[in-house]
Protein backbone atom coordinates (compact mmCIF):
# COMPACT_ATOMS: atom_id res chain seq x y z
CA UNK A 1 0.00 0.00 0.00
CA UNK A 2 1.33 3.47 -0.93
CA UNK A 3 0.07 6.83 0.29
CA UNK A 4 1.21 10.03 -1.36
CA UNK A 5 0.16 13.49 -0.27
CA UNK A 6 0.90 16.99 -1.45
CA UNK A 7 0.63 19.86 1.05
CA UNK A 8 0.75 23.56 0.30
CA UNK A 9 0.39 26.81 2.19
CA UNK A 10 2.37 29.94 2.85
CA UNK A 11 5.56 30.03 4.86
CA UNK A 12 4.92 30.08 8.60
CA UNK A 13 1.91 27.78 8.43
CA UNK A 14 4.16 24.88 9.38
CA UNK A 15 3.65 22.81 6.25
CA UNK A 16 7.20 21.48 6.20
CA UNK A 17 6.97 20.54 9.88
CA UNK A 18 3.95 18.28 9.40
CA UNK A 19 5.51 16.90 6.24
CA UNK A 20 8.44 15.81 8.36
CA UNK A 21 6.12 14.59 11.09
CA UNK A 22 4.18 12.39 8.69
CA UNK A 23 7.36 10.99 7.18
CA UNK A 24 8.79 10.25 10.62
CA UNK A 25 5.57 8.58 11.71
CA UNK A 26 5.92 6.36 8.66
CA UNK A 27 9.45 5.46 9.68
CA UNK A 28 8.29 4.57 13.18
CA UNK A 29 5.83 2.18 11.55
CA UNK A 30 8.69 0.55 9.63
CA UNK A 31 7.42 1.93 6.34
CA UNK A 32 9.41 3.43 3.49
CA UNK A 33 8.98 7.18 3.20
CA UNK A 34 10.13 10.13 1.17
CA UNK A 35 9.74 13.82 1.95
CA UNK A 36 10.45 16.38 -0.74
CA UNK A 37 10.15 20.10 0.07
CA UNK A 38 10.07 23.01 -2.31
CA UNK A 39 10.03 26.70 -1.49
CA UNK A 40 9.39 29.89 -3.42
CA UNK A 41 12.12 32.36 -4.33
CA UNK A 42 11.25 34.81 -1.54
CA UNK A 43 13.20 34.48 1.67
CA UNK A 44 10.35 35.69 3.90
CA UNK A 45 6.75 34.58 3.36
CA UNK A 46 6.10 33.03 -0.01
CA UNK A 47 4.82 29.55 -0.76
CA UNK A 48 5.87 26.37 1.02
CA UNK A 49 4.95 22.97 -0.36
CA UNK A 50 6.04 19.42 0.14
CA UNK A 51 5.26 15.94 -1.07
CA UNK A 52 5.32 12.97 1.28
CA UNK A 53 5.12 9.34 0.23
CA UNK A 54 4.53 6.58 2.78
CA UNK A 55 4.65 3.05 1.45
CA UNK A 56 5.16 -0.61 2.24
CA UNK A 57 7.17 -0.95 -0.94
CA UNK A 58 10.33 0.90 -1.90
CA UNK A 59 9.57 4.52 -2.70
CA UNK A 60 10.38 5.54 -6.25
CA UNK A 61 9.76 9.10 -7.26
CA UNK A 62 9.55 11.62 -4.40
CA UNK A 63 7.74 13.98 -6.78
CA UNK A 64 4.25 13.06 -7.90
CA UNK A 65 2.61 14.52 -10.97
CA UNK A 66 -0.94 13.88 -9.81
CA UNK A 67 -1.00 13.35 -6.06
CA UNK A 68 -3.74 11.13 -4.67
CA UNK A 69 -4.26 13.47 -1.74
CA UNK A 70 -3.96 17.21 -1.13
CA UNK A 71 -3.81 19.49 1.91
CA UNK A 72 -4.49 23.07 0.83
CA UNK A 73 -4.03 25.69 3.51
CA UNK A 74 -4.42 28.99 1.66
CA UNK A 75 -6.08 30.56 -1.37
CA UNK A 76 -2.93 30.89 -3.49
CA UNK A 77 -2.20 27.18 -3.11
CA UNK A 78 -5.70 26.24 -4.15
CA UNK A 79 -5.41 28.27 -7.32
CA UNK A 80 -1.99 26.94 -8.13
CA UNK A 81 -2.19 23.28 -7.18
CA UNK A 82 -5.75 21.99 -7.03
CA UNK A 83 -5.73 21.18 -10.74
CA UNK A 84 -2.87 18.74 -10.19
CA UNK A 85 -4.70 16.38 -7.89
CA UNK A 86 -5.63 12.96 -9.23
CA UNK A 87 -9.33 12.42 -9.96
CA UNK A 88 -11.08 11.20 -6.81
CA UNK A 89 -8.24 12.45 -4.61
CA UNK A 90 -9.10 13.38 -1.03
CA UNK A 91 -8.45 17.09 -0.55
CA UNK A 92 -8.59 18.96 2.73
CA UNK A 93 -9.13 22.68 2.32
CA UNK A 94 -8.67 25.34 4.97
CA UNK A 95 -11.96 27.17 4.65
CA UNK A 96 -10.71 29.90 7.00
CA UNK A 97 -8.48 31.22 4.22
CA UNK A 98 -9.97 29.70 1.08
CA UNK A 99 -13.17 30.99 -0.54
CA UNK A 100 -15.99 28.66 -1.58
CA UNK A 101 -15.80 27.30 -5.12
CA UNK A 102 -13.66 29.19 -7.58
CA UNK A 103 -12.54 25.87 -9.18
CA UNK A 104 -13.82 23.10 -11.42
CA UNK A 105 -12.81 19.94 -9.56
CA UNK A 106 -16.15 18.21 -9.07
CA UNK A 107 -14.19 14.95 -9.29
CA UNK A 108 -12.44 15.39 -5.94
CA UNK A 109 -13.37 14.16 -2.47
CA UNK A 110 -13.29 17.65 -0.97
CA UNK A 111 -13.46 18.42 2.74
CA UNK A 112 -13.51 22.04 3.94
CA UNK A 113 -12.55 22.73 7.56
CA UNK A 114 -12.18 26.16 9.23
CA UNK A 115 -8.70 25.29 10.46
CA UNK A 116 -7.74 28.74 11.73
CA UNK A 117 -10.86 29.03 13.83
CA UNK A 118 -10.39 25.49 15.14
CA UNK A 119 -6.82 26.34 16.08
CA UNK A 120 -7.95 29.46 17.91
CA UNK A 121 -10.40 27.29 19.85
CA UNK A 122 -7.42 25.31 21.08
CA UNK A 123 -5.88 28.64 22.02
CA UNK A 124 -3.02 28.76 19.52
CA UNK A 125 -3.37 29.81 15.87
CA UNK A 126 -0.13 27.96 15.06
CA UNK A 127 -1.86 24.62 15.57
CA UNK A 128 -3.47 24.75 12.13
CA UNK A 129 -0.83 22.37 10.77
CA UNK A 130 -1.30 19.76 13.52
CA UNK A 131 -5.05 19.73 13.10
CA UNK A 132 -4.50 19.25 9.38
CA UNK A 133 -2.18 16.29 9.73
CA UNK A 134 -4.46 14.70 12.34
CA UNK A 135 -7.38 14.93 9.97
CA UNK A 136 -5.28 13.57 7.11
CA UNK A 137 -3.99 10.58 9.07
CA UNK A 138 -7.43 9.58 10.29
CA UNK A 139 -9.06 10.03 6.91
CA UNK A 140 -6.46 8.10 4.89
CA UNK A 141 -4.94 5.78 7.46
CA UNK A 142 -1.55 6.50 5.96
CA UNK A 143 -0.16 6.33 9.50
CA UNK A 144 -1.79 5.89 12.89
CA UNK A 145 -2.45 8.83 15.17
CA UNK A 146 -0.21 7.20 17.74
CA UNK A 147 2.71 7.17 15.34
CA UNK A 148 2.12 10.82 14.57
CA UNK A 149 2.08 11.66 18.26
CA UNK A 150 5.14 9.53 18.92
CA UNK A 151 7.00 11.25 16.07
CA UNK A 152 6.45 14.68 17.62
CA UNK A 153 9.53 14.35 19.83
CA UNK A 154 11.59 13.44 16.78
CA UNK A 155 10.65 16.46 14.72
CA UNK A 156 10.11 19.15 17.35
CA UNK A 157 13.25 20.84 18.68
CA UNK A 158 14.00 19.92 22.29
CA UNK A 159 12.91 23.32 23.56
CA UNK A 160 9.42 22.86 22.13
CA UNK A 161 8.77 19.43 23.62
CA UNK A 162 6.72 21.13 26.34
CA UNK A 163 4.17 21.90 23.63
CA UNK A 164 3.73 18.23 22.71
CA UNK A 165 0.53 17.78 24.76
CA UNK A 166 -1.06 20.75 23.02
CA UNK A 167 -0.01 19.38 19.63
CA UNK A 168 -1.49 16.01 20.56
CA UNK A 169 -4.79 17.70 21.31
CA UNK A 170 -4.68 19.40 17.92
CA UNK A 171 -3.98 16.12 16.16
CA UNK A 172 -6.93 14.53 17.95
CA UNK A 173 -9.18 17.48 17.12
CA UNK A 174 -8.26 17.14 13.45
CA UNK A 175 -8.85 13.39 13.55
CA UNK A 176 -12.21 13.85 15.31
CA UNK A 177 -13.40 16.16 12.58
CA UNK A 178 -13.14 13.57 9.79
CA UNK A 179 -14.49 10.06 9.30
CA UNK A 180 -12.33 6.98 8.81
CA UNK A 181 -11.81 5.91 5.19
Amino acid at each position, binding site marked *: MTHDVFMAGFGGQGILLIGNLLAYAGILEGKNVSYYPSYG*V*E*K*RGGAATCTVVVSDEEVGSPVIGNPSCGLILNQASLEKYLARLKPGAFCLINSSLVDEGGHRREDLDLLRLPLNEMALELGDPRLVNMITIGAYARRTGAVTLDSLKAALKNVLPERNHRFIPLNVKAIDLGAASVKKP
Partner: protein
Amino acid sequence: MTTDFKPVFERPVSLKDIQTHFCPGCQHGLIHRLTADAMDHFGVQQTTIGVASVGCSVFLYEYFDIDVVEAPHGRAPAVATGVKRARPDSVVFTYQGDGDLAAIGTSEIIHAANRGELLTAIFVNNTTYGMTGGQMAPTTLPGQTTLTSPEGRDVFLDGYPIRMAEVIAALDGAAYSVRVAVNNPKNILQAGKAIRRAFEYQVEKKGFAFVEVLAACPTNWGMSPLQANERVGAEMIPYFELGTFKDRAGDK
Protein backbone atom coordinates in the same frame (compact mmCIF):
# COMPACT_ATOMS: atom_id res chain seq x y z
CA MET B 1 -7.67 79.76 -3.30
CA THR B 2 -4.79 77.39 -4.26
CA THR B 3 -2.11 75.62 -2.30
CA ASP B 4 1.27 74.83 -3.83
CA PHE B 5 3.18 71.71 -2.96
CA LYS B 6 6.80 71.29 -3.85
CA PRO B 7 8.23 67.74 -3.79
CA VAL B 8 11.06 67.39 -1.28
CA PHE B 9 11.47 63.67 -1.71
CA GLU B 10 10.66 61.64 -4.80
CA ARG B 11 11.75 58.34 -6.27
CA PRO B 12 14.70 58.79 -8.66
CA VAL B 13 13.79 58.19 -12.31
CA SER B 14 16.69 55.73 -12.76
CA LEU B 15 14.96 53.45 -10.27
CA LYS B 16 11.95 51.53 -11.55
CA ASP B 17 8.73 51.96 -9.61
CA ILE B 18 8.25 48.33 -8.65
CA GLN B 19 8.27 46.03 -5.65
CA THR B 20 11.65 44.59 -4.70
CA HIS B 21 12.32 41.03 -3.55
CA PHE B 22 14.39 42.30 -0.62
CA CYS B 23 13.41 41.33 2.91
CA PRO B 24 11.78 43.94 5.16
CA GLY B 25 14.47 46.27 6.49
CA CYS B 26 17.07 45.11 4.00
CA GLN B 27 19.15 48.13 3.10
CA HIS B 28 20.02 47.02 -0.41
CA GLY B 29 16.88 48.87 -1.45
CA LEU B 30 18.10 52.06 0.14
CA ILE B 31 21.55 51.75 -1.42
CA HIS B 32 19.89 51.13 -4.78
CA ARG B 33 17.99 54.38 -4.28
CA LEU B 34 21.12 56.36 -3.43
CA THR B 35 22.88 54.94 -6.48
CA ALA B 36 19.96 55.89 -8.70
CA ASP B 37 19.97 59.39 -7.15
CA ALA B 38 23.60 59.77 -8.22
CA MET B 39 22.77 58.73 -11.80
CA ASP B 40 19.90 61.20 -11.87
CA HIS B 41 22.14 63.90 -10.44
CA PHE B 42 24.63 63.58 -13.29
CA GLY B 43 21.93 62.81 -15.84
CA VAL B 44 23.74 59.67 -16.95
CA GLN B 45 20.95 57.08 -16.75
CA GLN B 46 20.97 56.85 -20.55
CA THR B 47 24.69 56.23 -20.80
CA THR B 48 25.20 54.06 -17.74
CA ILE B 49 25.92 50.35 -17.86
CA GLY B 50 25.55 48.53 -14.57
CA VAL B 51 27.41 45.35 -13.77
CA ALA B 52 25.48 43.09 -11.41
CA SER B 53 27.15 40.61 -9.11
CA VAL B 54 25.84 37.41 -7.55
CA GLY B 55 24.16 37.98 -4.23
CA CYS B 56 20.85 39.38 -3.08
CA SER B 57 21.54 42.29 -5.42
CA VAL B 58 21.71 39.99 -8.45
CA PHE B 59 18.44 41.45 -9.80
CA LEU B 60 19.99 44.89 -10.38
CA TYR B 61 18.38 45.01 -13.82
CA GLU B 62 14.92 44.49 -12.34
CA TYR B 63 15.23 47.67 -10.32
CA PHE B 64 17.45 50.04 -12.27
CA ASP B 65 16.14 51.29 -15.58
CA ILE B 66 19.51 50.95 -17.35
CA ASP B 67 21.47 48.46 -19.41
CA VAL B 68 23.00 45.75 -17.25
CA VAL B 69 25.52 42.94 -17.59
CA GLU B 70 25.46 40.08 -15.12
CA ALA B 71 28.88 39.00 -13.88
CA PRO B 72 29.88 35.66 -12.42
CA HIS B 73 30.29 35.63 -8.64
CA GLY B 74 33.13 37.95 -7.66
CA ARG B 75 34.09 38.96 -11.18
CA ALA B 76 32.11 42.17 -11.60
CA PRO B 77 35.24 44.36 -11.63
CA ALA B 78 36.76 42.28 -14.44
CA VAL B 79 33.53 42.29 -16.42
CA ALA B 80 33.23 46.04 -15.86
CA THR B 81 36.80 46.49 -17.07
CA GLY B 82 35.87 44.77 -20.31
CA VAL B 83 32.75 46.91 -20.62
CA LYS B 84 34.53 50.18 -19.87
CA ARG B 85 37.40 49.46 -22.25
CA ALA B 86 34.92 48.58 -24.99
CA ARG B 87 32.72 51.62 -24.29
CA PRO B 88 34.98 54.27 -22.75
CA ASP B 89 32.27 56.93 -23.01
CA SER B 90 29.69 55.11 -20.95
CA VAL B 91 29.43 55.30 -17.18
CA VAL B 92 30.10 51.86 -15.71
CA PHE B 93 29.45 50.85 -12.12
CA THR B 94 29.64 47.60 -10.21
CA TYR B 95 27.47 46.63 -7.26
CA GLN B 96 28.78 43.81 -5.08
CA GLY B 97 28.19 42.25 -1.71
CA ASP B 98 30.90 41.39 0.80
CA GLY B 99 31.02 37.71 -0.04
CA ASP B 100 31.24 38.59 -3.68
CA LEU B 101 33.85 41.31 -3.41
CA ALA B 102 35.88 40.49 -0.29
CA ALA B 103 36.05 36.72 -0.69
CA ILE B 104 35.94 35.14 -4.13
CA GLY B 105 36.37 38.52 -5.84
CA THR B 106 39.38 39.77 -3.87
CA SER B 107 41.76 39.57 -6.77
CA GLU B 108 39.46 41.22 -9.31
CA ILE B 109 38.60 44.26 -7.17
CA ILE B 110 42.21 44.80 -6.09
CA HIS B 111 43.59 44.69 -9.62
CA ALA B 112 40.81 46.75 -11.16
CA ALA B 113 41.56 49.37 -8.50
CA ASN B 114 45.29 49.00 -8.97
CA ARG B 115 44.98 49.44 -12.74
CA GLY B 116 43.03 52.59 -11.96
CA GLU B 117 40.13 51.51 -14.17
CA LEU B 118 37.63 54.33 -14.63
CA LEU B 119 34.93 52.54 -12.67
CA THR B 120 32.59 53.25 -9.78
CA ALA B 121 32.43 50.35 -7.34
CA ILE B 122 29.58 50.08 -4.82
CA PHE B 123 30.35 47.56 -2.09
CA VAL B 124 27.60 46.50 0.30
CA ASN B 125 29.02 45.05 3.50
CA ASN B 126 26.42 43.24 5.59
CA THR B 127 28.92 40.91 7.31
CA THR B 128 27.42 37.80 5.77
CA TYR B 129 26.50 35.87 2.66
CA GLY B 130 22.90 36.99 2.42
CA MET B 131 21.61 35.16 -0.59
CA THR B 132 22.99 31.78 0.37
CA GLY B 133 21.46 31.87 3.81
CA GLY B 134 23.91 33.59 6.07
CA GLN B 135 27.33 31.96 6.08
CA MET B 136 30.43 33.54 7.55
CA ALA B 137 31.98 36.15 5.27
CA PRO B 138 35.48 37.69 5.37
CA THR B 139 33.68 40.68 6.93
CA THR B 140 31.87 38.72 9.62
CA LEU B 141 32.64 40.25 13.02
CA PRO B 142 34.59 38.35 15.70
CA GLY B 143 32.20 36.22 17.70
CA GLN B 144 29.35 36.66 15.23
CA THR B 145 27.48 33.39 14.85
CA THR B 146 26.55 32.40 11.32
CA LEU B 147 25.50 29.24 9.52
CA THR B 148 29.17 28.25 9.20
CA SER B 149 30.47 29.77 12.44
CA PRO B 150 27.95 28.21 14.81
CA GLU B 151 30.07 29.05 17.85
CA GLY B 152 30.77 32.54 16.52
CA ARG B 153 33.67 33.63 14.34
CA ASP B 154 36.88 32.46 15.99
CA VAL B 155 39.65 34.79 14.86
CA PHE B 156 42.27 32.14 15.53
CA LEU B 157 40.70 29.66 13.13
CA ASP B 158 38.71 31.90 10.82
CA GLY B 159 40.83 35.04 10.74
CA TYR B 160 39.81 38.64 11.09
CA PRO B 161 37.16 40.77 9.39
CA ILE B 162 38.79 42.42 6.40
CA ARG B 163 38.55 46.19 5.96
CA MET B 164 38.23 46.60 2.22
CA ALA B 165 37.96 50.39 2.04
CA GLU B 166 41.37 50.65 3.70
CA VAL B 167 42.88 47.92 1.52
CA ILE B 168 41.66 49.66 -1.64
CA ALA B 169 42.79 53.08 -0.44
CA ALA B 170 46.32 51.69 -0.03
CA LEU B 171 46.59 50.94 -3.77
CA ASP B 172 48.25 53.61 -5.91
CA GLY B 173 45.73 53.03 -8.65
CA ALA B 174 42.69 53.85 -6.53
CA ALA B 175 41.59 57.50 -6.54
CA TYR B 176 38.72 57.47 -4.08
CA SER B 177 37.83 55.12 -1.24
CA VAL B 178 35.32 55.68 1.53
CA ARG B 179 33.23 53.78 4.04
CA VAL B 180 29.71 54.93 4.86
CA ALA B 181 26.63 53.54 6.57
CA VAL B 182 22.88 53.94 6.05
CA ASN B 183 21.64 53.31 9.58
CA ASN B 184 20.36 56.84 10.26
CA PRO B 185 19.45 59.98 8.31
CA LYS B 186 22.79 61.64 9.00
CA ASN B 187 24.79 58.70 7.71
CA ILE B 188 22.40 58.26 4.81
CA LEU B 189 23.14 61.84 3.79
CA GLN B 190 26.86 61.11 3.93
CA ALA B 191 26.39 57.89 1.98
CA GLY B 192 24.47 59.72 -0.72
CA LYS B 193 27.25 62.29 -1.04
CA ALA B 194 29.92 59.60 -1.20
CA ILE B 195 28.13 57.65 -3.94
CA ARG B 196 27.60 60.84 -5.90
CA ARG B 197 31.28 61.68 -5.56
CA ALA B 198 32.17 58.18 -6.72
CA PHE B 199 30.18 58.77 -9.90
CA GLU B 200 31.71 62.22 -10.26
CA TYR B 201 35.16 60.60 -10.30
CA GLN B 202 34.12 58.58 -13.30
CA VAL B 203 32.17 61.26 -15.11
CA GLU B 204 35.20 63.52 -14.84
CA LYS B 205 37.57 60.65 -15.67
CA LYS B 206 39.45 61.16 -12.42
CA GLY B 207 40.01 57.51 -11.58
CA PHE B 208 38.77 54.42 -9.77
CA ALA B 209 36.25 55.12 -7.01
CA PHE B 210 35.18 52.74 -4.26
CA VAL B 211 32.34 53.11 -1.78
CA GLU B 212 31.87 50.59 1.02
CA VAL B 213 28.39 50.79 2.53
CA LEU B 214 27.63 49.12 5.85
CA ALA B 215 24.16 47.60 5.71
CA ALA B 216 21.81 45.35 7.66
CA CYS B 217 20.72 41.83 6.76
CA PRO B 218 17.90 41.31 9.28
CA THR B 219 16.98 37.91 7.92
CA ASN B 220 20.35 36.24 8.28
CA TRP B 221 21.21 38.12 11.43
CA GLY B 222 18.01 36.66 12.89
CA MET B 223 16.90 40.11 13.96
CA SER B 224 14.00 42.45 13.39
CA PRO B 225 14.72 45.29 10.99
CA LEU B 226 15.01 47.69 13.91
CA GLN B 227 17.37 45.46 15.88
CA ALA B 228 19.44 44.86 12.76
CA ASN B 229 19.66 48.58 12.05
CA GLU B 230 20.70 49.05 15.68
CA ARG B 231 23.49 46.52 15.26
CA VAL B 232 25.00 48.44 12.36
CA GLY B 233 25.67 51.37 14.66
CA ALA B 234 26.43 49.37 17.78
CA GLU B 235 28.71 46.66 16.38
CA MET B 236 29.69 47.29 12.77
CA ILE B 237 30.73 50.93 12.82
CA PRO B 238 33.06 50.47 15.79
CA TYR B 239 35.01 47.86 13.82
CA PHE B 240 34.52 49.28 10.34
CA GLU B 241 35.44 52.90 10.90
CA LEU B 242 33.44 55.32 8.75
CA GLY B 243 35.39 57.85 6.77
CA THR B 244 37.17 58.92 3.61
CA PHE B 245 40.40 56.96 3.26
CA LYS B 246 41.38 58.43 -0.06
CA ASP B 247 40.11 61.31 -2.14
CA ARG B 248 42.86 62.05 -4.61
CA ALA B 249 40.98 64.80 -6.44
CA GLY B 250 40.09 66.46 -3.16
CA ASP B 251 42.43 67.44 -0.37
CA LYS B 252 42.69 64.06 1.34
